[in-house]
């Protein structure tokens, strides 16, 4: 075969492979939206349980994301600047929840913070018990999705050259003031993108949540519940709404990337 023929064959192979992958991804989502989309949008007006589930999902995901931003960003900074002893080991530990099957993550949370544990008892007396509560949902979401935020935020901060901070220090800034005035604004888009990815992951969580809290129901649990109790047709509108909800963070990420400066895009 000539070189040109081999090149054409390779190109055709790449196109065929890519098309197959796209179809595998697009057909299930497309059919879900086509078959359940209109019913889902209509259900938003009539189905109170679905509306409540949506609000609960969004609120818990938002709470988990804000808690992670607040607690995790300083650690992400220290890891990005290699200022933590054993930083590599700590970063690996932070990524571990990504690899644990999510129902197992739920069981681990139950073991650590369930009613029968000392911490669980304290939390329960404070009205923050994790079983059957929105606290438990937010905790499960944080556990499975925070590693995504930590990893992406650390990378976004590491992309900001240390010497910007050094210059700010010679201009009179304390370490944290330099971080606040220079590093965080320069890493802002990366950090916001990390938060969006975390939020999206938290919204779609099912396995860890269902172990801790079946009721009140988040959208993923409601979708499963409708499917097991009433069958495919009843689950379709809920599932379609969940897919449409996923478009929100996706569009937010696209617009963030479109507005990024060359420095942020190139790193």
């Amino acid at each position, binding site marked *: 075969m000539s070189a040109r023929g081999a090149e054409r064959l390779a190109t055709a192979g790449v196109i065929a492979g890519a098309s197959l992958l796209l179809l595998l991804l697009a057909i299930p989502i497309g059919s879900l939206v086509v078959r359940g989309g209109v019913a889902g949008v209509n259900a938003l007006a009539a189905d109170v349980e679905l509306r409540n589930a949506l609000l609960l999902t969004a609120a818990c995901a938002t709470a988990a994301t804000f808690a992670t931003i607040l607690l995790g960003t300083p650690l992400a900074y220290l890891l990005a600047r290699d200022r933590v002893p054993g930083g590599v080991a700590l970063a690996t530990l932070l990524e571990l929840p990504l690899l644990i099957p999510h129902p197992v993550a739920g069981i681990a949370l139950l073991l650590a913070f369930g009613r029968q544990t000392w911490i669980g008892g304290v939390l329960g007396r404070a009205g923050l018990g994790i079983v059957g509560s929105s606290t438990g949902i937010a905790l499960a979401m944080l556990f499975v999705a925070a590693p995504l935020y930590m990893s992406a935020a650390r990378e976004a901060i590491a992309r900001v050259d240390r010497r910007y901070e050094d210059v700010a*220090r*010679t201009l009179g800034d304390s370490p944290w003031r330099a971080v606040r005035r220079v590093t965080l604004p*320069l890493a802002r888009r990366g950090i916001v993108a990390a938060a969006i990815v975390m939020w999206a992951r938290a919204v779609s969580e099912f396995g860890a949540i269902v172990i801790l809290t079946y009721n009140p129901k988040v959208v993923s649990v409601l979708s499963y519940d409708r499917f097991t109790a009433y069958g495919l047709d009843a689950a379709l509108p809920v599932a379609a709404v969940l897919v449409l909800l996923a478009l929100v963070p996706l569009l937010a990420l696209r617009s963030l990337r479109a507005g990024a400066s060359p420095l942020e895009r190139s790193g």
Partner: protein
Amino acid sequence: MLADVTFALSRGQWGVVLGPAGAGKTTLLEIIAGVRRHSKGRIALRGADVTTRRPEARRLGMVYQHGFLFPHLDVEGNIAYGSSAAAACAAAERIGADALFGRSVATLSGGERQLVALARALATSPDILLLDEPFAALDPRRRSLVRSEVASIHRERGTTVLHVTHDFVEAGLLGDLAIVLHGGGVAQVATPDELFRKPASGIVADFVGIENVFRGMIESREGDTDGAETTLRFTGEGIELIGVGRPTCGPGHAVVRGEDVVLSLSPLDGSSPRNVLAGVVREIARDGVLSRVSVATGGTSITAVVTRRSVEELGLRPDVAVTASVKATAVHLC
């Protein structure tokens, strides 16, 4: 990596740091600024030990070669970052950066970035200014203007300056003291004039671009003394020279500046001790108004830097027999 760097710069002096790429010049400035950790040693500024003091408490300004302007702020925001708006305006006007007000950092050229970075550091009126090749990206005319303005600020305010540069002309123009870094340590600390006249080693002589650096053996000659330096004999690389240097015996270098080599068609008469080397012209390279004439003599060659007019008057061209004369006092042995 820096190993052993010791030098002292008096208050109000302009020090220039020279050295090959990778010698640790920027690292040295960062350590003095306090933004880079060092494992050993001591740093004193204004007579006080600041080794453990935070960068923001060291009262110094630093200008990186690439400026490191904050991309999320405009030019005014950058210059006023560590000072008031009035101080920022004054500093910018002084060095001509005020014309860039209103511009975003992304639209600035390399030279404009350096100008803004300089203004940003000057706006805080630091006692000590650390400059890492701050004029390198400016065009020649702007470079000369900005250089002289920064020099007048240094004189007016008594600012102590430590300035990394690769430009020997700049070092000679501005520097009160030159510090040459090499191999992680200080190769020489001297006035720029002394550095170019009397390099401490063959490495320094090579680095500052002296045309003739010979390696060989140095031996003292009894009786001939000139102050602290003695007349010494040098033998090596197919050449024998009488020169001056500190009394020593052993391996060393003979250093002869090209402009100290006098070419003639016959030996010159004179009372001062001279090295007279007979040879033939091997190559003539033009360098602006000057010419570098390479003369093969004995087992080596010596380069003379002469005017093009001298080349024409003497009728120099390859294979012409000439005499290269060098005064003993112009042969620096180290």
